[in-house]
C-alpha cells in the first residue's frame, strides 16, 4: 500500500534529522522523505500533525513467553505495537529454551503469523541454558538467531565461558551476557545497601557484577570475542565498562529502563512491583547509569519486559516473581529520561532506535529512503495513567502503576503495514 504520512515532526536519530517533513511509503519501504517520489499517488494519507514520526523502537529485551504459554506471543506483540515497538529481541529463556533450530524456526513462523513487531530471537549459548555444554550456535544463527545469550548469570565454569567466547569468535557471532557472578549473587533479592540492610532482605552485592565484568573483559582480551552486556546496574560496573571501552574492547551494553528511573528506596514497604532482576540499587548507582548514558558508555536502553501475572506478585517480596511489564511504558519513560537529561529528542530516541539497531547489526531503527518502513508515530504530549485497563500486555504489574506518564504511540507501522492505531479516548485498540 502506498502511504503518505504528512505534517509530522520527523525525527531520525541516525541521520540527525529533526524537522517537519512528510514521509512516503511504498512496497513496505520508505520511498521518500520530504518530497514525494516521482509519480507517487498515496492510497492512504495519514495526518501526523502534532505527532513525532520516528523509527519504530527496537527493544533489546522483551519476553514473549513463547514457546510455552499459548497465545502469549500474539498478545505481547500487540503490546509492543501499542508501545511503538517494531523490533523485539527476545531472550532464549523460554520453556523449552531456544537451543534447537526447530524451535527458532517455529518461533519466527509464529511471530510472522502474529503480524506484530519483528522478532529477533536470541539463541541459547549453552544446551538447555545449563551453562555447561555449548549449544549449536552456528546452526542456530543459520535458523535466524541474531546473537546468543546466557540469561541469568555467567556460566559457573570459567573454562566453559572461555571456550564459548573462542567458539563464537570463530564464526564472528555476538555473545550477550548478564554480568552476574552467581556465587556472589546467591539468593539476593535486593541490591546491597542501606535499604536491604534495613529491610533485612538478602542482598546482591555489586561485586557480583564487577567480578563478572572483570572476568568478561579479561576473556575478551584473550579471545577478541564481541560481547554485549545486558542490564548493567552498578556504579562500579559502569566505571569498569567505561575503562573497557576506552581500551577498545569490542563491547556494548544496555540498561533496563526501570534502573534509569528507580532506586532501592522505591521498594518502600516491600512493594513487590519493585522486585526486579537485576535488583534496584542505590541512588549513586542510578546517577552513574545516568552519567553512563550521557557519555555513551551505556549504548542503549531496553524495556526488559517480563509480563508477570498479578498472583505471582501478590507474594512477600522475596518470593514474588521478579520483572515488570514494560513494552508500553518504554517510550514515555525514555522520553522522561531525555527531558530530565535535557537532551534533544533525536539523542533521546537514539537509545531505543539507532543504537540498539547498531548493536544488533540489523538495518532497522532508522528513517532513510530504501529502509524498511518500520515507523512509530507518537504523541509526545499525550498524558496517560498507567493501569491494568490501559495495558495490552497480559502482565499488568509495573512499578509505575498509578503514575501519569507522558508520551504514547498512536500508530505503528511494520514494513509499511499499519499494524496499530490508537482509537482516541480509549485504551489501546490494536487492529
Amino acid at each position, binding site marked *: 500500500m502506498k502511504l503518505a504520512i504528512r505534517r509530522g515532526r520527523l525525527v531520525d536519530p541516525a541521520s540527525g534529522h529533526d524537522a517537519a517533513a512528510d514521509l512516503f511509503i511504498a512496497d513496505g519501504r520508505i520511498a521518500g522523505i520530504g518530497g514525494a517520489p516521482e509519480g507517487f499517488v498515496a492510497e492512504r494519507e495519514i495526518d501526523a500533525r502534532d505527532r513525532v514520526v520516528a523509527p519504530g523502537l527496537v527493544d533489546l529485551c522483551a519476553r514473549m513467553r513463547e514457546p510455552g504459554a499459548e497465545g502469549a506471543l500474539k498478545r505481547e506483540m500487540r503490546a509492543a505495537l501499542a508501545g511503538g515497538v517494531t523490533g523485539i529481541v527476545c531472550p532464549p529463556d523460554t520453556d523449552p529454551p531456544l537451543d534447537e533450530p526447530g524451535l527458532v524456526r517455529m518461533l519466527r513462523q509464529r511471530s510472522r503469523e502474529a503480524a506484530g513487531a519483528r522478532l529477533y530471537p536470541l539463541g541459547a549459548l549453552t544446551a538447555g541454558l545449563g551453562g555447561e555444554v555449548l549449544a549449536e550456535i552456528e546452526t542456530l544463527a543459520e535458523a535466524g538467531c541474531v546473537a546468543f545469550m546466557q540469561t541469568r548469570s555467567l556460566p559457573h565454569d570459567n573454562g566453559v565461558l572461555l571456550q564459548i567466547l573462542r567458539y563464537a569468535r570463530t564464526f564472528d557471532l555476538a555473545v550477550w551476557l548478564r554480568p552476574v557472578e552467581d556465587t556472589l549473587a546467591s539468593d539476593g533479592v535486593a541490591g546491597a545497601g542501606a535499604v536491604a540492610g534495613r529491610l533485612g532482605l538478602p542482598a546482591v552485592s555489586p561485586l557480583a557484577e564487577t567480578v563478572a565484568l572483570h572476568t568478561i573483559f579479561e576473556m575478551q582480551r584473550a579471545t577478541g570475542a564481541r560481547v554485549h552486556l545486558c542490564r548493567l546496574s552498578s556504579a562500579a560496573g559502569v566505571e569498569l565498562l567505561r575503562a573497557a571501552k576506552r581500551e577498545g574492547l569490542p563491547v556494548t551494553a544496555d540498561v533496563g529502563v526501570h534502573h534509569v528511573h528507580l532506586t532501592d528506596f522505591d521498594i518502600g514497604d516491600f512493594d513487590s512491583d519493585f522486585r526486579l532482576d537485576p535488583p534496584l540499587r542505590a541512588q549513586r548507582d542510578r546517577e552513574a547509569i545516568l552519567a553512563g548514558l550521557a557519555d555513551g558508555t551505556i549504548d542503549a536502553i531496553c524495556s526488559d519486559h517480563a509480563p508477570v501475572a*498479578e498472583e505471582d506478585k501478590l507474594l512477600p*517480596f522475596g518470593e514474588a516473581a521478579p520483572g515488570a511489564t514494560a513494552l508500553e511504558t518504554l517510550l514515555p519513560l525514555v522520553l522522561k529520561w531525555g527531558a530530565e537529561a535535557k537532551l534533544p529528542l533525536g539523542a533521546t530516541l537514539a537509545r531505543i532506535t539507532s543504537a540498539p539497531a547498531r548493536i544488533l547489526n540489523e538495518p532497522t531503527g532508522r528513517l532513510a529512503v530504501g529502509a524498511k518502513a518500520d515507523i512509530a508515530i507518537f504523541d509526545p504530549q499525550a498524558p496517560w495513567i498507567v493501569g491494568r485497563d490501559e495495558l495490552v500486555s497480559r502482565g499488568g504489574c509495573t512499578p509505575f502503576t498509578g503514575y501519569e506518564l507522558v508520551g504514547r504511540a498512536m500508530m505503528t507501522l511494520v514494513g509499511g503495514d499499519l499494524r496499530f492505531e490508537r482509537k482516541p479516548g480509549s485504551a489501546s485498540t490494536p487492529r
Partner: protein
Amino acid sequence: MRTEFGRNPQLNRNGELHHLLSIEGLPRAIIERILDTADGFIASASREVKNVPLLRGRSVFNLFFENSTRTRTTFEIAARRLSADVFNLDIARSSAAKGESLLDTINNLTAMQADMFIVRHAAGGAPHLIARHVAPHVHVINAGDGRHAHPTQGLLDMYTIRHYKRDFSSLTVAIVGDILHSRVARSDMHALAALGVPEIRAVGPLTLLPEGLDTMGVRVFTKLDEGIRGADVIIMLRLQNERMRGALLPSAQEYFRNYGLTPERLQLAKPDAIVMHPGPMNRGVEIDSRVADGTQSVILPQVTFGIAVRMAALSIAASSQRMQ
C-alpha cells in the same frame, strides 16, 4: 494494590495503631503507650484470674508460616488472657506444594470472622502484604518476618530496659551477635533510637553485620571488649544456625572465644549493667551459663514482660477504629 504514597501502613487515618508491622515508623508516643499499658497487664498477671475481658468475642488467628512453639505460645497466652478466642494455624511451607496462595488463605480466614491475624513468616514483608489485603476491620500483628522485624520483641526489650533503667536518655546499649540475620536486632535498634537512647552499638564479626547501620544511628564494633565497655545494657543475640548459609563463621567454638559473653568480659560493662537475650539461648556459644544464670541477667523477667507487652500491643491495635 499500591498504598497511598507516604501513608504509614500501620496507622489508620486518625493516627491510631491498627496493625503492628514494625517498630520503624511507629511514633514514639505509641511505643510509650504500649509500654505504659503493659504495666496494667503485669498487675493483672499477679492475680488468680489473669484474664481481662477486652478481646472477648474477638477471633485471633495465629498464622505461623515459620515454626516457633515459643513465640506462638506466648501470643496464645496473651490473646487468651485478653479473653479472645484463639485459633492456631501451622501452615507448613513446602516449595513443592504451592497449593493455596497466601492471600487465598487470608480471604478464607476472614470469611470465618477472623478479627486479628498474628503472622510469622520467613519472608520479609509478608505481614505488610497481608495487611494490604485484609478487610478494614481486621488487624495484623507481625510476630516476625524474615530478617526484617519482630516488633513485639523490640517492645518487650524496651519494657525490660525501662523497668531496670528508667531513663533511656543516658544509656549505652550494645547488641551483640548475628545482626545481619536478626529481626530482633533491627526492631531493637529502631526502638532504642525512637526512645532517644544516645549510644546504640552493634557488635559482631564483619560477616554478620549488615550494611547501612550508620544510617540507623548505630555504632559498629567488631571487637566485643570495645563494644561492651561501659554499656548499661547488653542484648545478646542467638547465633542462628538455621539462617546461616555458607562460610560466615567457622565454628561455634571460635565464635564463643571472640564474642561469647563470659563473666570476665561482663566486667567491662557498667557494674549494674543488665544482660538480655531474646531466647532461646545457646549456652556456651553466645553466652556463658554463669552469665545467663547470674545476678545481672534479666532473661527470665523478659519472658514475663513479654506476655504483658503482647497483651498491650494486641489490645491497643484492636482498639483502633476501622482502617480507612
